[in-house]
């Protein structure tokens, strides 16, 4: 009886082993945003058709939850094989030992070829001697869109927009009409990521940055940086920007522009569709003008691999395929240039592609970047609400940043 039971157990085990050795698929889990819900099944189907031995399992979630859920999964050693990261996430997660390097798969004769990518986009994520993320999407929120009709009413030439933030302020002064409740300019909420881009752009306009190039010391309280912050605060003090944009609410700026209560808006390529929703009969080109700006901030979405990947090579193959085919699958600006005539087929994105190409400066990446940005934003808010002068607030910010950067 005992012997026959062991025999049956052996046969069942061997059968399982045989089935798993011959028929099992490699499953790659991929975490990304819920905005991929339409494309994800198509991507899955296409990739699995080409690679019958691989199963792609998408885990999609809202942007608000993504960081926390990813972090908890990483802490529990239960993270997906591949996950989407914003620019600032990469050094933060790398410094805590959560990421696996991609170097084995990136190179002229390897799976992912550097020449696919626009200059510096790939290099941004090469630090501490390794490649820590592979970009797949690039964008900028530094491009200015403006209401041409309001320009005409204010006596401004609707064919010529401002070229930098200092000119934006001059234009805003002419465009603001308090009687009609119209603001010259609007930006996204001070608590949102977009404000980080605006701050960065303002600092670059004034020839400075939040921290020094080595990311060892705060520079946000140097005279140029204080001038840059005073410049931003003055938009609110002079009533050129609605106070409401200081509230934490997504798409506040887009809505102000869309319902024609603000004349100018710094807009990302994806945000043009939100403007369409808020302003249903908008005619781009006729109602809305576009102006390329100096010192644009370029960001990208990347894929990272968790530190103990189950299938690193299969994951790298998938990312190579993704970068090759992304332009065909979605209307998002691809980081890879392999789309060829993508811009011609998606002409609405042309200004953003041109704006990205104008980028000269790149964001300094360092592990404490999220904390440093948060400190800077908080102190700017304190200056805006008048609890401290700009100089005092930036001195306090510098003190806190230096502490955060200290080893």
């Amino acid at each position, binding site marked *: 009886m005992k012997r026959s039971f062991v025999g049956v157990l052996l046969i069942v085990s061997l059968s399982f082993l045989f089935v798993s050795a011959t028929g099992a698929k490699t499953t790659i889990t991929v975490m990304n945003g819920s905005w991929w819900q339409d494309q994800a099944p198509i991507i899955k189907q296409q990739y699995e058709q080409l690679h019958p031995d691989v199963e792609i399992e998408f885990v999609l979630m809202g942007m608000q939850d993504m960081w926390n859920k990813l972090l908890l999964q990483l802490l529990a050693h239960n993270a997906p094989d591949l996950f989407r990261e914003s620019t600032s996430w990469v050094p933060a997660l790398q410094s805590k030992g959560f990421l696996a390097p991609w170097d084995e798969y990136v190179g002229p004769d390897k799976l992912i070829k550097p020449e696919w990518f626009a200059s510096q986009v790939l290099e941004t994520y090469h630090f501490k001697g390794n490649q820590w993320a592979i970009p797949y999407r690039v964008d900028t929120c530094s491009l200015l869109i403006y209401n041409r009709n309001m320009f005409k009413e204010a006596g401004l030439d609707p064919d010529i927009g401002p070229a930098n933030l200092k000119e934006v302020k001059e234009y805003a002064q002419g465009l603001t009409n308090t009687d009609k409740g119209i603001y010259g300019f609007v930006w996204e909420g001070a608590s949102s990521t977009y404000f980080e881009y605006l701050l960065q752009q303002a600092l670059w306009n004034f020839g400075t940055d939040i921290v020094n190039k080595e990311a060892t010391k705060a520079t946000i309280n140097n005279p140029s940086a204080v001038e840059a912050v005073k410049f931003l605060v003055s938009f609110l003090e002079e009533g050129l920007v609605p106070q409401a944009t*200081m*509230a934490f609410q997504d798409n506040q700026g887009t809505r102000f522009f869309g319902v024609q209560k603000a004349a100018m808006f710094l807009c990302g390529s994806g945000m043009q569709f939100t403007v369409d929703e808020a302003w249903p009969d908008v005619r781009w080109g006729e109602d809305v003008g576009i102006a390329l700006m100096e010192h644009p901030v370029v960001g990208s979405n990347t894929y990272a691999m968790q530190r103990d990947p189950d299938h690193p090579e299969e994951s790298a193959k998938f990312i190579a395929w993704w970068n090759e085919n992304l332009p065909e699958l979605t209307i998002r600006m691809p980081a890879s240039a392999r789309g060829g005539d993508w811009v011609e087929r998606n002409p609405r994105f042309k200004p953003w592609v041109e704006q990205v190409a104008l980028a000269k400066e790149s964001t300094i990446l360092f592990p404490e970047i999220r904390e440093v940005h948060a400190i800077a934003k908080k102190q700017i808010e304190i200056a805006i609400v008048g609890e401290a002068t700009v100089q005092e607030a930036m001195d306090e910010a510098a003190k806190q940043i230096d502490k955060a950067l200290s080893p």
Partner: protein
Amino acid sequence: MYKENSFLGNPGYRFIAPAIVLIMLLFGYPVFKIIQFSLSEISLTTLQPVRWVGFDNFWDTLITYRFVQILRNTFVWTTGSLVGQIGLGFAAALLLNKKIRGITFFRIVIMLPYVTPGVVIAIVWLFFYDTEFGLFNPLFIEAFGGEKFSVLSSASTALPAVILVNIWYMFPFSSMVIRAGLQGIPGEIYSAAKVDGASRFQLFRYITLPSLRPVLRLLVVLQGIWAINTFAFIWIMTRGGPGYSSSILGVLAYEYSFNFLHFEKGAAVALILLGVSLVFGYIQLRVTARKEETII
């Protein structure tokens, strides 16, 4: 085997022993880990201490990020929420305790905020407060005059505005509990007092209020603990801003841990929050207990 009066000899202790073990595991272990984290530098990949740093995480927390302002905000948030929730809940309970036609409908309607998910409530109120597109400004200007202002962008109004949301969300619970308490007061006492010529105020002051004291005491403790630990509304509606004007200890702990990956400092703030909760709870119990002794 054991003496009847000893810990192991008493069957009562043996009956509750499994529950105590479970509580120790579910409560004791996390508290131990939080204490361990707060006194050390930890590796996030192993979640183990790599270096003991003593009280450095506490000092860092106390020195930076306007700790005093955040502590004050925590007090204002908790007290404001508590007073509003119980005050409004009391008023609603007195109204809903009347035997009038259609009262069941109102009893159900008043529970709606409490049964709606908090996130939904926060988003609805965000739209309500919206300066340009929300209803708050037109209503406020209609009632009090003045000009449009951004409630959540102002350092003086952001915290009160979110406290109002917290009150609106939780007062139905107070109302429900207080109404249950009201129904437990025998009608004969009121009848007897009326015969003696007691006024409405006297009925309330000398019968209703003392009879509800155990219920109110329970509410003060429960809702105080909930309020001090709740931060979802603040996080969703203001992120603690502008500046630190609506930031509370819960927000700070969350920011340290999840935004900046300083779980050690987050743990230190969590322990401070635990201490504040205990002090707050103790004071509440002492105050309500003392009143009970003097009145009855």
